[in-house]
């Protein structure tokens, strides 16, 4: 139906680069990302990190909002179970993550576009590895870019408005 050509068009658009939004907890994963930097562990640049104090702060709305604003993938990084700076914020994240994944699946967003990873402050390498894997996976899945899809969906409205206007012009004439 109407969505199919959109996807195809996006997939073939040569300028598409995957974009991953990452929410990293301040104590473990953000620090690990700093360590990856200090250790000059190169990784894919198609990631944008947003710092929160704890992965428990990651409201499922943030994930959906990121997708709605054009992210192709979302990565959440928290401390390993048992290591949470706030005792067990990460368990709450884990539980939400499982439910959120089901909602995403039912709403047509592939499993690989959301990932939760435990990365300790010392695991700079794991930051680089996870980001690379995530970007690659998203690249393989192709563009999600809901911003563009929303526009395509609403194209049927815009055309109507144009039609209505032209009709109106005709009537007045």
């Amino acid at each position, binding site marked *: *139906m*109407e*969505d199919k050509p959109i*996807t195809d068009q996006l997939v073939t658009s040569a300028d598409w680069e995957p974009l991953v939004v990452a929410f990293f907890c301040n104590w473990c994963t953000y620090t690990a990302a700093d360590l990856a930097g200090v250790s000059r562990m190169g990784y894919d640049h198609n990631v944008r990190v947003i710092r929160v104090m704890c992965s428990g702060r990651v*409201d*499922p*709305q943030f*994930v*959906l*909002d990121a*997708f*709605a604003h054009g992210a192709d993938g979302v990565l959440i990084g928290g401390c390993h*179970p048992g290591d949470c700076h706030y005792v067990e914020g990460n*368990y*709450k994240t*884990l*539980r*939400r993550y*499982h*439910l*959120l994944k*089901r*909602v995403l699946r*039912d*709403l*047509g*967003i592939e499993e690989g576009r959301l990932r939760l990873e435990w990365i300790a402050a010392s695991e700079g390498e794991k930051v680089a590895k996870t980001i690379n894997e995530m970007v690659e996976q998203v690249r393989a899945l192709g563009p*999600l870019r*809901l911003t563009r*899809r*929303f526009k395509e*969906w*609403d194209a*049927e*409205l815009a055309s*109507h*408005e144009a039609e*209505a206007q032209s009709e109106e012009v005709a009537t007045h004439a």
Partner: protein
Amino acid sequence: MPDKPKVAFYWCASCGGCEESIVDLAEDILEVAQAVDIVFWPVALDFKRKDVEAMPDGSILATMVNGSIRTSEQEEMAHLLRRKSQILIAYGSCAHMGGVPSLANQFSREQILRYVYEEAPTVVNEQKVRPQPRHQYDGTALTLPEFRGLARSLDQVVEVDYYLPGCPPTPKLLKQAVLTLLSGELPPRGTVLAPDVALCDQCPRKETKPTDLQISEFKRPHWTQIDPEKCFLAQGVVCMGPATRSGCEAQCIQGNMPCTGCFGPTSRVRDQGAKILSALASPISAREPEEIEKILSGIPDPVGTFYRYSLAKSLLRAKVTR
């Protein structure tokens, strides 16, 4: 009475319940009818579209539109009424957030049409005939509205001034809204005309919710004997109350059914489903993925449960690949 303010009612993709709710004003409707001049109400009064088109732009004080927008005709009417009205009110869950009809956004247009005209068990249609937007019959052109790809809330099609939430809105809220409009003291544009606090605030069972709730099982209402006094969540029954605006007078709760979320989220929330998801998942009493999954399996259709009335207005709006 030439100077009575003019009001209009219109329905789009809706079940008719909202129209019913206006009648539910009962004797109060006389008071309303006295205060205003109803210039357009297809369900009750015989006015036609051309009558509306003939009105000067902005001549109607307020129009209340219920139902979501699914067809080209509904779209046109929305635009028309927008133009003719000073105030446009989205009336009821469907106009407010897409409502139940927008759950169809999980399917493509083609899937819906195929099912309705070919696959539904009650349909016999061997030629696979489908209604066409334009059809020549006996030398005459017949037209039908276009069926759009998505169901939309009213404000996804035209600008909306106020929202009266609910499936349907209560007579009390309607009356209050009409009085507010007539008073001329208008709230800021975009206001939802119901209290901006979640349902638990008014819930008669509020006391019975423990402060140390851990959820070890989700039960579906029809599979369980529900204690009529106790908080639904404390019984493991999904209740949307914590993530849903109040103002409904907790009618479902009083009928011993959990809140399903028709009033939509508070003004501080962008996505009602995401919020109830977070609130329900966080206190699950499990730490291992398998256990978590097991508990969550008690919610077999999270989208249908969390977004029952709000899928069109959710952040993702629809199933993104249909």
